[in-house]
């Protein structure tokens, strides 16, 4: 989904910006929910399901707002269930298979810490409804960060096996961290009208939090300058997103008029 520069209005930029935020959260929530009934302990099972529901809730609120701004008669389900893979603008980081428990924790930690700094920037947004949403969700994100950070420390500084496995997870995830900080004209317009975050402002702070956590967990920080994946903000994805969408969307698409009674 590439947008021709001259036609990019403020409204389009706002919609694209909200969709990027929402897609990250929906796709990651869907991935996390795969742990439901499979986490290593009952308590952790609940924690994972809680975080999954939180992130899907964040996405729902954002999609609802997109529907309102777009004003074309859609509801939030339209954006979740009736768009194809190239229309989704979530980070590739969010769509990768859940892997082992360490991989899920490593991914969630990287994402939640990024979200934390992002939402801290956005909480003063000019748009009242958007700002309200951000402030509400920020509280939950703080908890996700706390929960996953503790787990990174436990696994990294745990047994030899847990250390090796979460180290491997961070190594594998590293090339997907670059595009978290991708910015284009959508961000420029949003920053200008007071509703967007300048990601470069907190990149160093985020890196420091990640590095400090990994060091404390006796893990090695991978090379920041290695090859990084790109493209997700414009709809370019890994092979995994299509399969995820197939599973997530097939029911809704098979019975488009079905209703909860």
């Amino acid at each position: 989904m590439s947008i021709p520069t001259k036609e990019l209005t403020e409204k389009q930029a706002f919609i694209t910006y909200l969709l990027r935020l929402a897609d990250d959260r929906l796709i990651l929530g869907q991935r996390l929910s795969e742990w439901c009934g499979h986490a290593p302990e009952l308590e952790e099972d609940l924690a994972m399901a809680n975080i999954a529901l939180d992130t899907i809730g964040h996405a729902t609120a954002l999609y609802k707002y997109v529907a309102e701004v777009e004003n074309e008669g859609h509801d939030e389900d339209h954006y979740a269930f009736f768009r194809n893979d190239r229309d989704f603008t979530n980070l590739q980081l969010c769509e990768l298979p859940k892997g082992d428990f360490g991989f899920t924790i490593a991914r969630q930690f990287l994402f939640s810490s990024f979200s934390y700094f992002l939402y801290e920037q956005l909480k003063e947004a000019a748009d009242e409804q958007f700002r309200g949403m951000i402030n509400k969700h920020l509280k939950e994100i703080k908890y996700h960060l706390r929960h996953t950070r503790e787990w990174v420390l436990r696994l990294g500084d745990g047994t030899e096996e847990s250390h090796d496995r979460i180290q491997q997870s961070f190594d594998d995830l590293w090339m997907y961290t670059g595009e978290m900080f991708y910015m284009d004209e959508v961000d420029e317009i949003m920053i200008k009208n007071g509703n967007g975050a300048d990601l470069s402002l907190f990149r160093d702070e985020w890196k420091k939090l990640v590095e400090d956590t990994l060091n404390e967990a006796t893990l090695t920080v991978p090379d920041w300058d290695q090859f990084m994946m790109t493209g997700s903000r414009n709809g370019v994805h890994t092979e995994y997103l299509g399969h995820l969408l197939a599973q997530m969307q097939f029911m809704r698409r098979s019975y488009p008029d079905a209703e909860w009674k």
Partner: protein
Amino acid sequence: MSENSSNKNEWPLWEVFTQPKSGKPHQHAGSVHAVDAEMALQNARDVYARRNEGVNIWVVESKHITSSTPEDMGPFFDPANDKPYRHPQFYSVPRAVKKRS
């Protein structure tokens, strides 16, 4: 308690106490498994505080709780039965005070 557990791989048990409102006493909510205090706190939050049940949580490893035994029941509690003067129920309470409580 955890040392006596039949399954040695099981995480230690923690008792959870939630405070429904600031100023109210903490009440026993249940128990969770966890490897450390921070995890116990987080698990307690996810299991017992997800529907607005409280404003504060205490966790304590179950093994640190000393409990009276069923055999203690007689000597501990029976003597109270025939001492009604320990209950301040013979005084009439002014209506204004009643209303407040």
